[in-house]
């Protein structure tokens, strides 16, 4: 039996990012100070952008990309709506269906699903842009230049918009303020791709670092943990293709990476139930530092919801795979037909 397994860099980053997100929320549910642990979602969004460029924009054109963006948005929106509905059936609200819950009442159901909703809205906006005859055509003439141009525009929006419209009450969790984060993934992907950027490796690596640092500074500012997380993730992605891990940790990383979206959407459900069960209330930072009980509470609030979310994903994945298997075997047809076949 193999002692080690290889885990690719983006799978490891995805896993670490979702672990950080859940830890951040666990700390937030117990202690007031969460500023040190933010950054998981910014890494996830950058990875999302990279993967979208890899699967949806290489060897594609504007029409296909527009369609892919809409399908991607649809999946995110449906998953997000399903989770919100699950929690809010008694108090249905039109905001839920419009996927704009984060615009209206941040803590409407105490489910902080802003990432999925913001990403879905961004994709819809970008799909419209690619559907414009000139927009999409111009972009695909040179995806690298197109991505960099879009990144500059998105960063300008990020820098200027908060000065015009104060969205701090809703924690700035709006699509136009996170657009740069998603587009950053595109730009990094095309910069490092030899075909899109036919330059020496040193040039491409230098350009990636430059764009990463500049975007992080404008998007987050160097005083935030998000900036350093983004930078660390970007450098790690640049430096290695993958790592070898002992079998069990590798399996855990693979599972959490596969389950990232489900963990993100579902862990709040368990987190809130736990908080209600134990009557936990945020504690001041001084107490958080000193109290072992608080540390234990954070760990419980981190690990239990995460494991429950993973269990949900495993259940969903295994039922779906089993259904496909049986369908392909013709099971579900009347018994006499199956007998006749055999």
């Amino acid at each position, binding site marked *: 039996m193999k002692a080690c397994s290889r885990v690719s860099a983006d*799978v490891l980053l995805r896993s670490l990012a979702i672990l950080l997100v859940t830890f951040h929320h666990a700390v937030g549910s117990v202690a007031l100070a969460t500023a040190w642990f933010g950054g998981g979602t910014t890494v996830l969004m950058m990875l999302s952008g990279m*993967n979208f460029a890899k699967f949806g924009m290489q060897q594609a054109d504007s029409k296909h990309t527009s369609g892919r963006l809409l399908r991607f948005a649809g999946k995110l929106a449906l998953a997000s709506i399903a989770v919100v509905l699950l929690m809010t059936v008694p108090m249905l609200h039109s905001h839920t269906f419009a996927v704009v819950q984060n615009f209206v009442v941040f803590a409407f159901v105490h489910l902080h699903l802003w990432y999925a909703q913001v990403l879905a809205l961004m994709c819809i906006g970008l799909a419209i842009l690619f559907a414009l005859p000139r927009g999409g055509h111009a972009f695909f003439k040179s995806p690298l230049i197109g991505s960099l141009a879009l990144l500059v525009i998105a960063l300008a929006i990020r820098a200027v918009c908060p000065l015009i419209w104060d969205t701090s009450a809703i924690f700035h969790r709006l699509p136009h303020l996170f657009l740069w984060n998603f587009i950053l993934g595109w730009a990094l992907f095309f910069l490092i791709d030899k075909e899109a950027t036919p330059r020496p490796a040193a040039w491409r690596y230098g350009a990636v670092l430059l764009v990463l640092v500049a975007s992080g500074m404008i998007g987050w500012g160097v005083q935030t943990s998000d900036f350093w997380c983004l930078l660390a993730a970007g450098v790690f992605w640049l430096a290695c293709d993958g790592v070898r891990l002992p079998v069990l940790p590798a399996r855990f990383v693979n599972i959490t990476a596969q389950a990232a979206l489900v963990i993100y959407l579902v862990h709040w459900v368990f987190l809130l139930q736990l908080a209600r069960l134990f009557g936990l209330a945020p504690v001041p930072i001084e107490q958080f530092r000193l109290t072992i009980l608080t540390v234990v509470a954070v760990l419980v609030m981190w690990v239990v919801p995460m494991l429950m979310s993973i269990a949900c994903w495993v259940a969903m994945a295994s039922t779906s795979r089993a259904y496909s298997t049986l369908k392909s075997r013709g099971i579900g047809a009347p018994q006499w037909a199956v007998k006749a076949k055999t």
Partner: protein
Amino acid sequence: MHSNGPFWDRLAEFGDSAALLDARGSVVTYAALAGAARKFADALGPRRRLVFLETCNRTEALAAYLGCLLGRHAVYLYSEADRHKALSLAERYQPNVIVDFAAGGPQLNWRHLDTVDLHHELCLLMSTSGSTGSAKLVKLSRQNIQSNADSIVEYLQLSGSERAITLLRPHYSYGLSVINSHLSCGASLLLTERSVTDRAFWESFRARGCTSFAGVPYTYETLARMDFAFSDFPGFRYATQAGGRLAPDLVRRFARSAAECGGRFYVMYGQTEAAPRMAYLPPKLAADHPGCIGIAIPYGTILLLDEDGREVRETDRPGQIAYRGPNVMMGYAENRAGLATDETPHVLLTGDIACRNGAGLLYIVGRAARFVKLFGARINLDDVEADLRQAQLDCACAGNDEAIVVALSNSPAADCDAAAERLSKKYGLPRFAVHVAAFDEIPKLANGKPDYQTILASRPAGRVGPKVNHGPGTLSAFFGIVLSRPYYREVLSEAGAILGVKRHDWAGVGEIYRKLTGRTQITANDTFTTLGGDSLGYVQMSIALEEYLGRLPAGWEHMTVLELEESKVHESLF
């Protein structure tokens, strides 16, 4: 491609050897043919043109065809009978020039003087038999044509001493391949527009020293009725048959007849998409294996692929014929813009289902499109037809994944009921899934083949059985699956595999794609991206592929199912 370039650039090398002859005795040498081709190329000008060329078996038409190749123009060939269709295609493709021979010599009707964006390798456009009336054209490159001509020269053992009579028309890929292969090796062609039932055809064959001819099944069926024997023609060396299945007893008969006079009879298989030849049956095996299409032509490879895109290696197990070789087309064009691109498929999926026998020879068992899946069972509609014909019923059978629809010719209602009952029992299908209708005559298309669409449409709409009997994919099938015991065993097994408690034994890349995308149909040419894969599903997919392949190849997301399977094979070899 031939090391000295394509044959149309080398015509003059054969100098004064005869290239084309006609029944009246006139001879066109290679030097003269090269000159005429050059003259035609010059008439089209130095810019690459899109040419629609009306062809026939006449010197002027063949010189024009060769001139188009020589001038690196892209030419679409059609016959006089297809003129109406060609004009309709011209509306869509807007050729620079349409050439016909209505007035004797070539008439160049200039249409559009703009520059057409033509792929640099593109030189020939052909309709397929399956796309009659459609705007879809097969794109063939210089390499496609030359490499196929080279292969044919090799396996037919052609030399400059051969002389074929042009029974088939040049707009038909089989007919064109006879011309290309003979001109490629300095052999000659006797041009005629006569048919095999015409005495003058055979008189010319004998008088002009012909050595071979090429025919379709209908040709040989006609010859069989005429008590034809190859021995009546002293110069005869070989005959070829392609363009459909010839009954095995006729193959045996002509193979023996050819062998008796020291000649060879070749059964061949191909498609326009392969320019066109893909397989041939070595003549010495024809009498013993008359139902076979044989082996791949030189420089080509034939694989049989199962539904998951995995290679079938066992004997007598069916799989779809997939062909790989330098003669595989550049893809299809459906409009003018499509002429600029090269979409050569990694393998050419023919749609024909075949098996390999114990001698390693391929034999066709049906068309992929002639298989339907009803209640989990795969049924070959050709087998259904054969069953009914055994019961002396004249029939044609169509079908889809809801029902089998049989058209019986001139039969009473009792025969229809009996036939339906017979099929229902034999294939284990509910009675409502077999519809048998009586027709005065079996509906046929213009080409004489059964009109399966009309037959299928004869089934009354909405005629379905009770809900419980719906096939997989419906609501009842959904509950049929999720309420079954095997489903829960499978769920536990999958969960165990995901968590690493048990090993995941993937059967192949096709299974992984089917299971993780939820699609029922995965083809060998599908890729993760063409299946609509995105960042939400890629981690699952990449991990499953790594489990199965042992390592994840770079760029896996753009690799086809077949390429991924092959990467596993290569990995295990090296």
